[in-house]
């Protein structure tokens, strides 16, 4: 290797190192450490942590709470992902029209994204409060009885889903709006000359052209459905009886409330595997249907 080539090589690593150091320290190392930790027992007092093979995974399979939060998370994803995407697309289509007060409308839809989820959760607490919350006040107008939305195991999870959709839709809308604005108006004109209805034009032209955005947004939505749990801390703490607990929230509880770090590492490994499979699957499934310019 010549001197100048060696110098270039040094430069390359120097330039890469800031990002590399941060990524390795806070992402790669903890991830690998978690996977390793899932094969060891939790150290308690004088007892050292020891290698126990797949014992943690056996515990996990037999853990009814794990299956409960996993199914909660499944339903949470099933509702939040399509609904938040559909809602964001509808809002973007509306806001993309030439309307009076458009800037205000766009801002209004984006506000939930700007607000911290913790604050948002507090606002929603007031909506759901039995008796004098917003929802019950409206129900009162129609002489409907009071309802404890967050306190009932049947509805607790859905209150969390509603908050997540409300929070996410505005954020996704921005991406759809940006994509819509890149579609040339002449395409609409050309379709109008041919007699295509608005619905036909959307189905055959706009929606296909938005597919790259849909792919991006849906991957984000999937990740968020496992990641966005802040409001559970404020609103239900996973209750009642784990009815609104999600995988990540359960991991937090296991690790920092019960201090069973090895079992938490096991749960984390499972979560990582789920996310990996979903992301890869999405890319392969959707990539064929996506038209990139």
């Amino acid at each position, binding site marked *: 290797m010549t001197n100048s080539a060696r110098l270039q090589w040094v430069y390359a690593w120097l330039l890469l190192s800031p990002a590399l150091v941060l990524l390795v320290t806070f992402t790669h190392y903890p991830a690998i450490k978690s996977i390793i930790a899932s094969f060891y027992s939790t150290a308690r007092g004088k007892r050292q942590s020891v290698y126990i093979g797949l014992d943690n995974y056996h515990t996990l399979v037999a853990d009814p709470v794990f299956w409960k939060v996993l199914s909660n998370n499944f339903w949470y994803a099933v509702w939040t992902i399509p609904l938040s995407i559909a809602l964001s697309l509808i809002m973007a289509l509306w806001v993309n029209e030439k309307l009076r007060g458009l800037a205000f409308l766009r801002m209004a839809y984006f506000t939930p994204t700007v607000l911290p989820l913790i604050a948002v959760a507090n606002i929603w607490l007031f909506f759901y409060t039995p008796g004098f919350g917003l929802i019950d006040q409206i129900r009162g107008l129609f002489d409907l009885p009071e309802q404890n939305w967050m306190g009932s195991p049947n509805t607790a999870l859905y209150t969390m889903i509603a908050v997540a959709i409300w929070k996410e839709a505005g954020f996704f809308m921005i991406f759809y709006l940006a994509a819509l604005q890149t579609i*040339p108006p*002449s*395409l609409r*004109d*050309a*379709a*109008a*000359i*041919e*007699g*295509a209805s608005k619905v*036909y034009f959307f189905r*055959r*032209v706009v929606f*296909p*052209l938005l597919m790259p955005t849909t792919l991006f947004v849906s991957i984000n939505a999937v990740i968020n459905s496992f990641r966005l749990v802040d409001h559970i801390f404020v609103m239900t703490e996973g209750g009642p009886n784990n009815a609104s607990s999600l995988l990540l929230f359960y991991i937090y509880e296991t690790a920092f409330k019960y201090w069973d770090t090895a079992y938490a590492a096991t749960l984390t490994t499972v979560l990582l595997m789920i996310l990996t499979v979903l992301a890869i699957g999405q890319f392969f499934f959707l990539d064929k249907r996506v*038209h990139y*310019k």
Partner: protein
Amino acid sequence: MVDRPFGQTIQVRNLTKNFGGEDVLSGIDLTFEAGSFTALLGPSGCGKSTALRLISGLEPVSSGQVLIGDTDVTQTAPSARDIAMVFQSYALFPHLNVAENITFGLRVRKTNRSEREDKLRHVADLLGLEKLLDRKPSELSGGQQQRVALGRAIVSGKSIFLMDEPLSNLDAKLRAEMREEIRALQQKLGVTMIYVTHDQVEAVTMADQVVLMNQGRVEQCATPRDLYETPATLFAAKFIGTPPMVTFSTRVLAPDSTSNVTLGLRPEAVQIVSEGPITAMIDHIEYLGADAMLACATANGETVLCRASGSTRMTKGDPVSLSFAPADLHAFAADSGQRLQHIPPEIEAALSFQKPGLQ
């Protein structure tokens, strides 16, 4: 050409378009004969594209009427006006291949599959697109995209074609080819074509009738020849021709004249003679190969252009005497810009009693 043209007549009456309190089009009246080729020509912002969009129905009129055939279509949807349109940007659907782009309208109208295939094959054959049917627009050259856009218009079977600067994104050579092709196609199909352009060469070479527009008004509606030979206004005179007509005051010919008239001469109408009505000095020369454009400064400080042979050996600073046939002299009212039927008497006098012996 077809005996009875397939295309329909289009008339616009007192067509006005107002954007935010400003008239973009102010009351234009035009007739487009069935099966004719009309160019809407003018500088950018003159309202020619707006006029086309009003005729297409993509833009609602502020007032006035659009008639196609004998029917008032002012309130009719674009798809029910019997029109096809080709856009400047081609407006091809980027996610559909060539075949799907061409048959887009047929699918919208739920034409059955075999008919669709037949029409597609016919159009592909007509435009030489057979080998490109599976390509996406991004895999085509500009000229090929242009053909696909034309194909989409042809396959629709409509009798009126509206073209919005369809060639402006192509390079010069391709543009010349497509000019001929579009003109031939229009005659073959017998459609009524309205063609918006800012390029006078396109307008003059292709159209039966040229509508010259300026600031939302029609300056002149005439055949290309009439437009060139008898421009109705100063604007028309200075817009048409490369280089355009040169205009100057009457004092160039009659130093004492005070008339409010602007005179015009086309550079090719001016000849260098030994004794002519204009004495001048060559200010600069633009060499064009076959021709050379001589800019001659007159005694009173105005400029007259003279087209000379490219072999001329004259140089800057040479004195020249210029002449022209009186029939080639155009006169316009200086204030309104309208063409005058008669040349002012003092100019006629100056031309008939030329001062001898200068030179």
